[in-house]
């Protein structure tokens, strides 16, 4: 396997394996259309912090649209709804991650996978394109994060 690409989130490097492709919603996709395994990129995982809760709003067999909300995830730093990056049919959901969400942190590209989907088509980014996407959106993402961190601080006082 070739060396992963590296994107610097400030001073923290995140690694992006080159054996798979990426979606703009910060998920990786591996495999072909008949069975795409999907998980969060290390970039997304770093934003979430230590993941302690994952829940699904869909079951295997469900047909989904690209961008459809399919669940919810909560980490130490943030929460987010989960969105599916491709249209198709959900084939499998990683129940082990549901039971033990820290796998997403410890092994985001392998045992921390989220689901398998049979995709209608795969409009995805190459690792290089995903790095470009991250570079372009990082300054704005930082503002978003700083903004939310600021208001969260006040909200919990």
């Amino acid at each position, binding site marked *: 396997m070739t060396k992963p690409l590296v994107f610097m989130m400030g001073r923290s490097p995140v690694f992006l394996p080159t054996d798979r492709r990426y979606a703009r919603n910060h998920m990786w996709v591996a495999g072909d259309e008949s069975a795409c395994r999907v998980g969060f990129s290390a970039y997304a995982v770093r*934003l979430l912090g230590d993941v302690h809760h994952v829940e699904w709003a869909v079951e295997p067999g469900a047909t989904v649209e690209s961008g459809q909300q399919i669940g919810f995830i909560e980490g130490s730093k*943030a929460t987010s709804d989960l969105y599916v990056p491709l249209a198709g049919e959900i084939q499998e959901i990683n129940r082990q991650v549901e039971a033990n969400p820290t796998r997403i942190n410890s092994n985001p590209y392998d045992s921390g996978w989220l689901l398998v989907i049979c995709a209608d088509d795969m409009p995805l980014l190459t690792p290089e394109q995903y790095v470009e996407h991250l570079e372009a959106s990082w300054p704005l993402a930082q*503002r978003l994060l700083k903004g939310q961190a600021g208001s969260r601080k006040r909200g919990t006082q």
Partner: protein
Amino acid sequence: MTNSTDVILSQPRKSLPEHEKLAGKILAGLSHRPGVHVTVIPHLYDLSPDGPGVEHLRSVEGSMIVLGWLYPRAAYWVLKANDVEGRLGRTSSLPEEDSDEPSGDAPERTIWCFDLRTHEQPEAYLEEIEGIIAAVGEGAEEAATGNGKSQAVEEATRSRWYPVIDFGRCTNCLECLNFCLFGVYGLDPNDSILIEQPDACRAGCPACSRICPEGAIMFPQHKDPAIAGDPKASLEGLKLDLSQLFAGADPAELAARERDRALAEQQRHAEGTADDDSHARDGLDDLVDELDDMDL
């Protein structure tokens, strides 16, 4: 310190019958109340910094009750921006909000701000105002000189649009200064953020408010409560939630697009005076184009 209380009624931009009815009943309820001066002014936000409205507000020495159709937090910081200072009083329109208290050398008087959209009936306001007047004037009824008679400050105002900074929240990070393309923000001699050219602001553009990490920038006339100065909305609306990022678009990107639309509009208006291609493309333009092309 005086024991009289000044009541300021900030009129709505467009006075509807229900506004007039509510204001009329409140003014009637306060008439002949000892120790009360009532002044009707045009919309507080629209006042000119060197006009008679602001001049009157600055002349008020004692406690002040401000009534208007805007969030109390917005009213308070508009006053502050015009050097009308005091402690922010708690009311039913603004029951509590910690950490937004102005600190330091605020004068020993209180400014209570009521949002006249809080209750439909005048009694709710009158009851609270009575309570405040009684507390302020306690033991000094005889010395009180006002008699509840109302006066109006005449000032020809126009609808303005500019940011109002909540300095209880602002950390002087200067994100707004760096973000705004219209030269609204500047620095004072101490390198603190300053609304340098309020009227250079693009009417309707609230993008800097969205970009502010502390939710400190208000546009009191904006339809979104979080931007118009509702403290609760701003907390809930910006809860740490990555959904927008993980769905593909985030608020910061949207804010940049909003600002750039305002800029494009300004440039259309300025066509003919600008050089043929005065706006050099930069990375942000490319990003915005890319975002526009995205189908997320």
